[in-house]
């Protein structure tokens, strides 16, 4: 019972922060919007892919990008949290580290999911139509992706002492994960050097799965995409829990 209440406390805190720091939500939606409106709209006026306008084609990719950025950043935030504010108080609470990790991970994933939901609303404006099934499954995809990436951020953040390495992580991890994922291009006919990175990039499977759900065309079966993504999430959650156990 104590652990459950502790988990609730951690999640409650993340929700309060999310609803109060509105600037954080707005700024995290600006980048995907720019991609969608400027890049998608600009290129879309000339290019169609897979039978749809380019802007529509990249929509699932930009949706995954929204989750990617907000999830990893949420996890990395723990570098600050560790030094100051509430997290120190959390670490002295009589709670198991598994609970603390789970609270943080679920809290961050729901944050990311809410931003994904905002993007889905925008999709309606662009002319994408959902039914209940595709909507629910899209949320499942986004949640699994978010839990994996929040965990990844928490793993990196809990092993970092200062914020100096942030730019490196963004340049060498977050952006490559976005670019190689096939968010912006079809992955069925890639040169082999590109294909290699695309295959090992876990975000690829989220983008392909979401594209299958929302636009009806994917390279791999949706269930296979989900299986690979879920496997990645399980590994990240496992390592993340272990990192938290070592956390001072």
């Amino acid at each position, binding site marked *: 019972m104590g652990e459950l*209440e*502790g988990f609730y*406390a951690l999640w*409650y805190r993340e929700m*309060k922060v999310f609803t109060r720091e509105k600037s954080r939500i707005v700024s995290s939606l600006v980048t995907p919007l720019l991609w969608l409106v400027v890049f998608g709209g600009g290129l879309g006026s000339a290019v169609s892919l897979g039978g749809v306008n380019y802007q529509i084609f990249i929509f699932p990719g930009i949706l995954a990008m929204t989750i990617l950025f907000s999830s990893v950043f949420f996890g990395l935030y723990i570098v600050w949290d560790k030094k*100051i504010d509430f997290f*120190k*108080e959390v670490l*002295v609470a*009589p709670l198991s580290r598994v609970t603390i990790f789970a609270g943080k991970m679920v809290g961050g994933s729901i944050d990311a999911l809410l931003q994904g939901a905002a993007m889905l609303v925008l999709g309606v404006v662009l002319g994408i139509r959902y039914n209940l099934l595709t909507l629910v499954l899209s949320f499942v995809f986004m949640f699994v992706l978010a839990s994996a990436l929040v965990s990844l951020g928490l793993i990196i953040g809990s092993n970092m002492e200062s914020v100096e390495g942030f730019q490196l992580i963004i340049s060498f991890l977050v952006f490559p994960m976005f670019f190689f994922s096939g968010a912006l291009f079809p992955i069925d006919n890639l040169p082999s050097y590109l294909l290699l990175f695309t295959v090992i990039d876990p975000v690829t499977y989220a983008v392909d799965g979401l594209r299958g759900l929302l636009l009806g065309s994917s390279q791999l079966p949706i269930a296979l995409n989900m299986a690979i993504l879920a496997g990645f999430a399980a590994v990240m959650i496992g390592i993340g829990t272990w990192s938290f156990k070592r956390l001072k």
Partner: protein
Amino acid sequence: MVSAVETDGLTKRYGELLAVDRLDLKIEGGEIFGLLGPNGAGKTTILSMLATLLKPTSGTARVNGHDIIEQPHEVRRSIGIVFQDPSSDDVLTGRENLYLHALMFGVPKHERKQKIDYVLSLVDLQDRANDIVKKYSGGMRRRLELARGLLHNPRILFLDEPTLGLDPQTREHIWQYIENLVKAEKVTVIITTHYMDEADRLCDRVAIIDHGKIVALDKPAALKAKVGGEIIKLRVRSPRLEPIKDLDYVLSVDQSGSTLLLTVKDASAHLQEILGTIGQVESVEVRSPTLNDVFLNYTGREIREESGEGGVFERIARVRSGR
């Protein structure tokens, strides 16, 4: 009845550095106990080990009868901690901070609201409870954290440098609150401090810590009495020390530059003779010993407030600017 704290050869080593050196310490319930020493003496390391935040290299301790290595959760439930740095969430209100603490420390549901109101009243924050912590002053935030430390009925409250970085008036207020808490809640308070006046004002007993060891432990008055006389502080141009050192009522002589600190038995009776002997005196001051003199007496050094590890505000500024 079990002791509040009982350490048994408690040791912490960081590589070559021996931060805490085979500490044997017993603290009984109901007192305000001070760990006094300069920064880097090992006070916070001792506190962190007692609070189960840090594993000792060797030795162990029992806190409220629970072993810090074997039963960390029991220890944590039985203690409250107020950190040096702010550890409340500044995006949440004061009341929300307390609510989260109540959840995490297992305060039963039916007691929560009443208990939160009670601890808020102990630190006079009822009126500001629903304000976001960002709007609090430094002193208010410290008060909130004091209240939070008491929320789950701990039997020991650890305060790590409770007035570091606060202005004199706010410090005085915090001290009053701490004294009130002890009266109202009958909790044992263990504070670390490098402020002499704080230890003198608050503590029933003080352990002077230097290089990870206790060099003296007693009531502040008794520690001061051990210095054995009064202090004469002189500024003297080219002082003649040899004849002074030979006087049998002069207990010790410390010199730094042109400033001399003499510890003298019955100073007022002998002041005339000292002034006549020592040379050309520019200023003179006679006072009772302070804990600072006690520290000097035991370690040969003065406690200095500045040190290499950097003030709390510099650290906060660094963290904030990164955000």
